[in-house]
């Protein structure tokens, strides 16, 4: 199990990192990529678009399934990771380095409502049973 303690998590298996400039980077957890299998495609959102917390804003497609990625916090998309267009396998190689998009949160307080690493570990432990 690989759940870095400096990140926040959602129960839909996204991770969120508060960057120094106040933006929030988003990706999927090690557990999520492990369950999906080899990723073949990542569809990132359009820069400039705004999403509400919990809204579907990206899609990951693996050899066996396609899943939506939900915004962990409300905000506007500031940047997307174009590398994943040609190399979706980077998500499998290092889930926490392969950020998908960065949001400028409209309510920074929402970060505090996300799961801690310990909570997320409990969630996936329950998921294993």
């Amino acid at each position, binding site marked *: 199990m690989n759940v870095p303690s400096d990140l926040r998590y959602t129960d839909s298996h996204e991770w969120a990192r508060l960057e120094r400039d106040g933006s929030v980077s988003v990706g999927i957890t090690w557990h999520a990529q492990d369950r999906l299998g080899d990723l073949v495609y990542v569809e990132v959102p359009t820069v400039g678009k705004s999403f509400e917390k919990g809204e579907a804003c990206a899609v990951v497609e693996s050899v066996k399934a*396609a899943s939506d990625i939900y915004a962990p916090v409300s905000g506007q998309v500031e940047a997307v990771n174009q590398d994943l267009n040609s190399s979706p396998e980077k998500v499998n190689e290092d889930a926490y380095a392969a950020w998908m998009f960065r949001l400028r949160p409209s309510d920074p307080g929402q970060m505090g409502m996300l799961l801690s690493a310990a909570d997320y570990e409990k969630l996936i432990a329950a998921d294993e049973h």
Partner: protein
Amino acid sequence: MPFIPHTEEDVRAMLASIGVDSIEQLFDEIPPELRQIKLQLAEGLSEMEVMRLMQQRAQADGEYSSFLGAGAYEHHIPAAVWQIATRGEFYSAYTPYQAEASQGTLQLLFEYQTMMASLTGMDVTNASLYDGASALAEAVLMAVRLQRGPRRVLVPTTLSPTYRAVVRAIVSNQDIELVELPYAPDTGTTLLDSLRRWEAQPFAALVIPHPNFFGALEPVHKLADWAHAQNALAIGVINPVSVALLQPPGAWGDKGCDIALGEGQPLGVPLAGGGPYFGFIACKQAHVRQMPGRIVGQTLDAEGRIGFALTLQAREQHIRRSKATSNICTNQGLAVTAATIYMAILGPEGLRNVARACHANLLALLERVTTVPGVRRRFATPVFHEAVLNVSVSAHDLLERLQEQRLLAGFDLSRDYPELGNALLVCVTETKTQADIEGYANALQSTLGQLQRAAAA
């Protein structure tokens, strides 16, 4: 289909087990007027006698000489096409559920896709859709998804009225606005001046029918470039036979169409009321994940041998459920099988010959019928295998009188395009001879004369 008879006892047992008394009661919910099919057969006829009777009755329907197109086209289909298509190995309407177990079917679909991509000049095509009109609806939905913004699509009125109605029915409840563009009254092609007002207002795509419903050739390069200049997509709607002569949608304008589609029936599928026909759809590689339907890919098996597999399935409904690219993307396996065999038998040169013969026959017909008093060509635009004629009497009456003479002389345009006056759409394919064309012109002349005299009297 095997013949499996039921004994009266079988029928009684089956009715008893579902709790109805009789066959009539079983079909009770069908209105009685629809059940009044009385074959009026004498009792106890032999098989030979029944065959003879049925042949006589079929002959009573008569045989028509058809100059009717408007979306479905009569072409010569080499006998080998359906002889091969109806072999047991091919004779199944669907892509199999255990797809990879049927390598032959997948190979055929892969070859179909390859041929269609080559014909349309596009990067990729799928394994077919339900028909041409619903393929356009899918293209509109696809364009709106790809553009991720404007939910407006520009649709010329030179696009088939049926296609416009089908697209409206499918997309109107999805918050998509279809804007109809007028056509120029002298050319019968999309009025370029009407585009200007959309330069300031966002839209997802422009639909370009070519040849259009009037048989006329649209200024496709200008239209495709204009759409791209507005950051919108260009959707080409084509007749697959026409692109054997005309530039394919992949080559329209500087960038080519983003999506191309059409009705596949002209490629080896016989005319039939209500089909089955099939639709084809093709797109640029960059858009493939938004293209609905099945796609067959070529791969290598564990031993390095060439094999075929369904690919990009994650966007399909059995995996993505309600978020799939489409939930109505029925493919037409058997019609596609025939089309693949048809294209393989004709080859590029054969298809070009068909297209050339259609075009030469149309020009011959137009030259001849415009010598008939009271008949003139409506538009002076280059055409492919169909054209609009204005006639001096009611087109409806004229067509009806000619039909009594076993001649389907064209499509009455007055309902969909009342501004054209007495107008009909006439179609000629390679199936017609010089004598057929002469016969058409003579029938037109005499019937038109009779109607004129009747009106004057």
